């Protein structure tokens, strides 16, 4: 009988500790996803700016230039949920340039920068996907949903990603 007086508060304390611990964990995961997104976003912005630079060199034929300029602007203005689609079409547009070897010879530094940015982009994307998946799978757990441990934090947005076409740019 007396045991109840010890066990009940002890269990309650344990439950409270576990919930705080879990909420803390999720908070960290959200933070990680935000960091990786900020990083990814910065690199994508740099890529769009570089794409505009390349399109404006004057050496690009008008059709390709138009395509790249439009894709770069769309990528810059896209909402977060449409972002990966917009960025994919920019990747596709940039792929057109890779075949133009003459351009590559005349502006080697622009292309070297494009290669560096693409390398960094690959890492940033994989880190971001990893962070988003970790946060999302944690949020889906029953205990997190029952106790609403995510609070008001928005669900991290998945970034669908075109790995293969990026590979071609760096080749």
């Amino acid at each position, binding site marked *: 009988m007396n045991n109840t007086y010890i066990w009940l508060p002890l269990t309650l304390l344990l439950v409270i500790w576990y919930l705080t611990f879990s909420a803390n964990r999720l908070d960290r995961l959200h933070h*990680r996803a935000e*960091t*990786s997104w900020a*990083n990814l976003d910065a690199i994508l912005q740099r890529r769009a700016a570089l794409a505009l630079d390349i399109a404006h060199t004057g050496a690009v034929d008008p059709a390709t230039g138009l395509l790249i300029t439009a894709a770069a602007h769309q990528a810059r203005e896209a909402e977060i949920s449409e972002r990966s689609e917009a960025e994919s079409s920019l990747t596709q547009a940039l792929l057109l340039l890779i075949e133009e070897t003459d351009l590559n010879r005349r502006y080697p530094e622009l292309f070297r920068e494009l290669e560096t940015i693409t390398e960094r982009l690959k890492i940033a994307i994989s880190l971001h996907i990893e962070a988003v998946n*970790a946060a999302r799978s944690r949020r889906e757990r029953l205990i997190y949903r029952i106790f609403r441990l995510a609070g008001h934090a928005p669900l991290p947005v998945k970034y669908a990603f075109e790995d293969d076409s990026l590979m071609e740019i760096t080749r």
Partner: protein
Amino acid sequence: MKIGFVSPYAWDVPGGVQSHIRDLALHYRQLGHEVSVLAPASDDSEITDDFVVTAGRPVAIPYNGAVARVLFGPVAASRVRQWIGSGDFDVLHLHEPAIPSLSLLACSIAEGALVGTFHAAAPRQKVAFAIAPLLEPVIEKLRARIAVSEVARETLRIHLETDAVVIPNGISVASFAGVSPNPEWQKPLNIGFIGRFSEPRKGLDVLLEALPNIARVHPNFRLLIAGPGEGLEAMQKINPALRNRLVFLGRINDAEKASFLKSLDLYVAPNTGGESFGIILAEALASGVPIIASDIPAFRYLLEEGKYGQLFENENSEDLARKVIALLKDQKTRDEMSVSGVNYAQRFDWSQVGDEIMNVYLHALIPGEKVGLSSESRLWNRIFSREDE
């Protein structure tokens, strides 16, 4: 940038992880970064590197088929807190954070730009699944994970369900390319082997079994064996007529290793498993030695499926003998392998590998933020602050 490295293994014991950390730290220091390494040490007076902070004496535990000297416990944790709290680091680079040692402690105590490198490769193990739920809340704090090979990445994916960026181990290509061969170990035909040859997984037995066949075709070869261990036992296993072809050099240092590799006509890596990267293959490539290696996953990956070195079927001495005989006959192929190997080895140079790792640091960073103590360990510090004095 101020970078803190944490080694899980004793600094005064030679090992792949320790030398990786030392080389990387020295490389970054040369580039003008500030570095500090926290590591266990059996004997503080043995530590000559001025950037190393010792955290206490390690204990020996069996891990992944070998004895690991690791460190944990409340005293070590308090040293870690102190080091992080006063370090003012931009990035904390934790090595092997999934084994019970300092890196795991540091990962649970710190908060901020944490990067983890996973070196080990392990087969699917039930025990790993048992400890995964305990590791997960700690490991998930890492903002970026690096695996040293596809094999290490796969291990991580199976056991901890998390992905990693693959960046290989580094070597200093110049220190292998520029040396001259040791005149004492000069020709006729030298086959080389380096490693703790008493460990069965290093595969010396596979090579010894191949010797009689090789000797039949190439009567004048020698087998140079370098590495710590007792040579007599290995001697007993082979035909007495072949014993005079074996030369045991004992443990060799880095400079000796470079000239040893330069003196070889062929390097054989008969390892039967447990290998995650195979740094010795990268070093042999940089020296321009042709390689024949077992087709274990790590070697297949490093040699790009046989493009930069020949592969033989693992644990098959007859296949090994065939490949060795054919390659020793073929000077032209050996010369070609030597040239393409030296070129390929650039990929493992610290200048390249260091840039790639720095790139990952930049991904983990938030400008202006420093690595600090997590809220739990700040509370702990307040309660037990006297202990930390």
